[in-house]
């Protein structure tokens, strides 16, 4: 979709009285969607899921972008405290059950947000992984929510050009060798290996937001 098509779709949702929200993980490339949405409608709330395991740099980056673009950000945190997120050895779940860790810290916190809204805007892109290649621009999600993926067919270059055109700041860790930046325990510097920077060594490539919270 180009910018006009994205704007048209959002205006259409609004004219239908739909309640819209967006999510952002505040990785480096997230800033394109955030800027774009802010240009179209600055009233769309941006939900930021703070799992508790993010890099401090990501939180600082979020604060920087929020101030720069004057974003309406709502921070969501897991309701299960970390002392209750341990396995039978007393270790945090990311050391043995990363899927469950993602469920408690990302998927579950967003579920209640879905129940209060109609349209969920997410910046997923088809080129990011196999799962996302199979997504459509509009998909169904739980609680009768429609997922809207405006950047689905945007390439790395389009994103890069957009960020450059509007001179948007990059994530501080991008210059330190990180490509895909999520929770610290499951993120790996790309300099160690050219494979994906998340869940290195596991078959896992998604946290669950784009697999569990989608109805195919």
């Amino acid at each position, binding site marked *: 979709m180009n910018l006009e098509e994205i704007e048209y779709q959002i205006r259409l949702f609004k004219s239908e009285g739909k309640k819209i929200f967006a999510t952002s993980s505040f990785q480096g490339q997230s800033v394109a969607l955030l800027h774009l949405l802010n240009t179209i409608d600055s009233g769309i709330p941006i939900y930021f899921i703070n799992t508790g395991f993010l890099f*401090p740099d990501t*939180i600082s980056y979020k604060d920087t972008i929020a101030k720069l673009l004057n974003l309406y950000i709502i921070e969501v945190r897991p309701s299960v*405290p*970390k*002392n209750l*997120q341990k396995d039978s050895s007393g*270790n945090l779940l990311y*050391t043995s059950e990363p899927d469950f860790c993602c469920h408690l810290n990302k998927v579950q916190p967003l579920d209640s947000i879905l129940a209060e809204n109609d349209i969920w805007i997410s910046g997923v892109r088809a080129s990011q992984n196999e799962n996302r290649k199979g997504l459509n621009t509009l998909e169904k999600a739980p609680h009768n929510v429609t997922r809207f993926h405006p950047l689905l067919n945007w390439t790395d270059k389009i994103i890069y050009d957009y960020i450059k055109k509007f001179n948007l700041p990059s994530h501080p860790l991008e210059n330190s060798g990180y490509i895909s930046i999520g929770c610290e325990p499951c993120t790996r510097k790309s300099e160690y290996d050219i494979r994906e920077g998340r869940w290195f060594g596991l078959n896992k490539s998604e946290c669950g937001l784009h697999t569990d919270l989608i109805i195919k």
Partner: protein
Amino acid sequence: MKVLITGGAGYIGTELTIQLEKETNVNEIIIYDNLSRNNYNIFLHSRIKRGKVKFIKGDILDSRKLKEILKDIDVVYHLAARVTTPFSNESPHLFEQVNNWGTAELVYAVEDSNVKKFIYVSSSSVYGSSDNKVDINTFPNPETFYGISKLQGEKHVERLFNKIDTYIIRSGNVYGFGVSMRFDAVINKFMFDASFTGRISVNGNGKQHRAFVHVDKLVDVLKNINLSGYKSGIYNLVDKNISVIELSDLIKDIYPDIEMIFINQHLKLRELIVIPDDRLQKLISIPEKNLREEFEEFSIKFHNSSIE
């Protein structure tokens, strides 16, 4: 002023509680501790009067409880930590769990509160080792899981710098007699062994230098920095740099009959000398003593308090 001390039942926390309890401007102190070391001495021997000090048993990862407690707190001292136990096989994950993610949870809870000051006790171990003396401008390069996790904790705390008065204090190896004292750090262990077993164990060739600070000085600085008007930032707190063999020689002067047993004496162990940070030295209000005086005092306390 209401104060929260995480790890308040520990070695430093107990001494800090004793001192803060005497302050007229401190109305309430909450000790938040999970008693993971099974050290109950603060309850038994601290002689803290009932009234000002409250104890809440809790885990530093328990964000729900922390949020509730922080509602009326003005000042937070974050001392809770998984600490180094030499030669243990403890999982590196536990350091990360408590010192990194525990600190992160606390910082998030503080951000949602009306806390006005945050004081985090970090460690000189974030510098790792160096053949050159290190100071506050030296780039950290931790070499132990403990040091790495304390530095990760600092990164979370740094986010508070432009929000509230926030002090990160990189403390040297803490020593000195205290109600809840630990015996896994070199000086306290030497003093205990010199007093009660007659034989102290030195690892490596003993020539390794370490940076030390007396617990009373650390507590004095923690108490005084709160009202110092200092800018948010990172500070070093080190009082004396001395080699392990110099320590053991000094202790032998005080206890002439003791023996020293050298273990792995062919090894040259890592070296760390930290230049004292003048900014914090200025906050020390207790009388200056040399190491010999401190050790003699230490030995008298052991002598008066216990069996031979």
